């Protein structure tokens, strides 16, 4: 997985802004960012957010730290900027460098600060940087037998006894060490001995240092039933889904986009951001609707696609082109078939593009930064072949059948995807008299091989 991983140390870049607002020194990352924003050596700092903070720090004469979102080419990058006046100059320290992550359907740690509590047996707690309780939901006290008022100001451990996780470690230590959200810390209540699960977000102070936890405690329900996974999708479920969901969703996305773009006039900045989240989540749902509709189609016994003459190399180049931006964000290079390569085949252009975008997208998602995804084409007497190869962690032999099944994913905890893509891709390939296969060994990357009938007329 190569997309941003919050656990890795983020790079820190330094710069010195001269009194005239130009960069008199900068680390390469900042020079590059400045250049991409149209800046030049000796000219004023061209990234407006950075320039504003530097100017503010100079004029106020104190350290100014702020999180900002900076447009960098086609993406937005989340930066933490600290500007410290130093004589006539201002020292900039820029960390974070986090591409604004796509909306995720399942978060590894609940966003305790903004999440609604799951049930009325859950309650909130907050600590300062010394892990002393600064807030406890008051009505949780009578329910669970503790005195919330008496606990305020006490160490977190006065309320909870922390237990080791299944692997013998304490998630809270990991969270403290790496300054990241705490997921599922087992504990029990000192007042009643009942088991609880603690999750928390880290609150940062203006210098980006640990300033405390904002957390939720959930009572552990002992006989919780595991959710039963439905392994078939009834036709009645998907029928009408398209009409019932697509239009309202499209409207939600369009409206959220126009709120975000402030098309109807200025709105407060955080509302504009919420709107972007809404649009992003809406698009994700639209994709799911598309997939479910596809699923219903490909599962019909009479499903077939009318073959037409196409150039498989051209489709492969287009698919690679569509994913260039995502790939470069993930620092992955896509190697496409040569511009003059031609592989005549018989298939459905739109569906082929869909399959290849899915394959290349997967490959990018599972590729480590700095690696290549190679899209190559071959042809034989009877077959046109396109191969999408990555240098990721590969797929173990026992998973190679599973990944083509409905709602199956190698690692269900990964963000993005709904476990339908490969299933649909293979069904589509077979409906075009072709096939989709995988060749892989763990640690050696994966090769997805899509075959189609060659076009005898143009061979």
């Amino acid at each position, binding site marked *: 997985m190569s997309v941003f991983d919050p656990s890795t140390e983020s790079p820190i870049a330094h710069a010195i802004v001269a009194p005239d607002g130009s960069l008199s020194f900068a680390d390469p990352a900042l020079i590059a960012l400045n250049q991409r924003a149209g800046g030049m050596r000796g000219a004023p700092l061209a990234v407006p957010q950075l320039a504003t903070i530097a100017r503010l720090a100079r004029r106020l004469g104190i350290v100014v730290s702020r999180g900002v979102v900076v447009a960098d080419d086609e993406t937005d990058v989340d930066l933490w900027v600290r500007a410290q006046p130093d004589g006539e100059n201002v020292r900039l320290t820029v960390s974070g460098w986090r591409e604004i992550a796509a909306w995720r359907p399942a978060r590894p740690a609940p966003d305790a600060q903004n999440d609604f509590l799951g049930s009325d047996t859950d309650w909130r707690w907050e600590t300062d940087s010394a892990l002393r309780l600064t807030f406890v939901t008051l009505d949780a006290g009578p329910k669970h037998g503790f005195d919330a008022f008496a606990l305020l100001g006490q160490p977190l451990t006065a309320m909870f006894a922390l237990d080791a996780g299944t692997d013998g470690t304490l998630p809270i230590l990991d969270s403290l060490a790496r300054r990241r959200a705490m997921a599922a810390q087992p504990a029990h209540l000192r007042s009643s001995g009942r088991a609880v699960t603690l999750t928390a977000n880290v609150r940062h102070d203006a210098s980006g*240092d640990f300033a405390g936890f904002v957390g939720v405690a959930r009572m552990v329900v002992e006989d919780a039933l595991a959710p039963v996974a439905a392994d078939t999708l009834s036709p009645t479920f998907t029928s009408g889904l398209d009409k019932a969901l697509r239009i309202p969703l499209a409207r939600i996305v369009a409206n959220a986009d126009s709120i975000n773009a402030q098309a109807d006039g200025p709105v407060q900045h955080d509302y504009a951001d919420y709107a972007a989240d809404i649009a992003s989540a809406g698009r994700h749902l639209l994709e799911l609707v598309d997939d479910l509709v596809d699923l219903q189609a490909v599962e019909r016994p009479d499903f077939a696609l009318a073959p037409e003459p196409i150039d498989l190399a051209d489709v492969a180049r287009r698919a690679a082109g569509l994913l260039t931006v995502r790939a470069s964000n993930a620092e992955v290079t896509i190697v496409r078939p040569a511009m003059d390569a031609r592989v005549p085949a018989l298939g459905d252009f739109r569906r082929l593009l869909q399959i290849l975008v899915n394959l290349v997208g997967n490959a990018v998602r599972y590729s480590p930064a700095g690696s290549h995804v190679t899209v190559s084409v071959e042809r034989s007497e009877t077959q046109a072949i396109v191969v999408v190869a990555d240098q990721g962690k590969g797929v173990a032999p026992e998973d190679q059948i599973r990944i083509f099944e409905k709602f199956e994913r190698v690692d269900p905890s990964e963000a993005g995807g709904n476990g339908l893509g490969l299933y649909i891709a293979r069904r589509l390939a077979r409906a075009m008299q072709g096939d989709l296969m995988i060749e892989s060994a763990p640690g050696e990357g994966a090769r997805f091989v899509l075959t189609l009938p060659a076009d005898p007329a143009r061979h």
Partner: protein
Amino acid sequence: MSVGRDPVDAMPSYDDPLARAETVRLRAETRLAGTIADFFLDADARLDDRTRLMLAHVLDAIVGSIEWDIRRHAARSLAGNGSTKAGEAILKAGAGGVVDRLTRAGLLRDEELMDELITRVRHDLIAASLPVEVAEPDEASLLVRLAGVPDSIVASAASALLAAESRRRVANEQGVVGGSELPAELHHRLVWWVAAAIRDGLPHATRESDRAITDAAQRSLAAHDEGERPDAVAMRLAGALDARPNELAAVLVESIGDRRLSLFVAVLAHALGIAFDQARAITLEPEGDRLWLALRALDMDRPTIARIGLALSEADPRRDIEAFADALDAIVSVGVEDARASIAPLALNRDFRMALRALARTSRR
């Protein structure tokens, strides 16, 4: 708050089409007047959506809690005297409609009440948005530290503030208030309004029901403890701390870095010798000018004023940090004595201030 709805039963039926048409015409006029007033409203005067929503919640919650206090207690005492029906009537008649009734009557437009509520809501929203600033890594935050000091007066006041602020937060988040947490005078006024609105909704008010409502209202007044309000608790802590001039800057900066805005306001009020509400008003003003002058009157230096200004700007979108940065040199150049003179009116007796304000308002008309 919106202008209250007319009660549905005030609309004449179609049996009297003339009256009905006239009522609708009057409503349309009222609506137009409201829309025009809304259109010409200064952007500065307009509440932003978050504040408006929270204000509506807080007002509903406070009036609702007083209303149910009175209804429950009056009903219980009537039922205890054998008048079960009258008790039930008090529980049912117009239940939950008191906010609407008071809004329609224009009573909730009371300037002091709304000033207090709007300020409280702004205070809480800004406090929640302040950036955290950790003074020392691994050191407990200011209020937690104060709750553990050997000086028992400081420690108990700090614990009380922790508790009061938690209560306030729960109230804001869940819309359940334990008490109005209003200043005594305002609470007094509101309780009688609510009592009157309850009686107004009764189909048959009797001497017994009046007595029961009166008793219940008086009980609510007696139970109100002004000293439990977070403002009062914060003032108690500020008094107990009694920060010396050389400690003042650190306490102010650290209380704002610990997001304890009420403590900041209280320490400021204590140091200036002015009332909490005055210090709170100047702290929340988006222009900030009176706050900067007050800080200069306390001889705060440039970095301290800059830190406070920056933190408040980050938390309050109405503020203009650029304008503040432009003005900072001029602010710092104001002499301590001049600054003191400029904010002297803040120290006037509250009733005196109110009277002056009322006079100024009438002379503007």
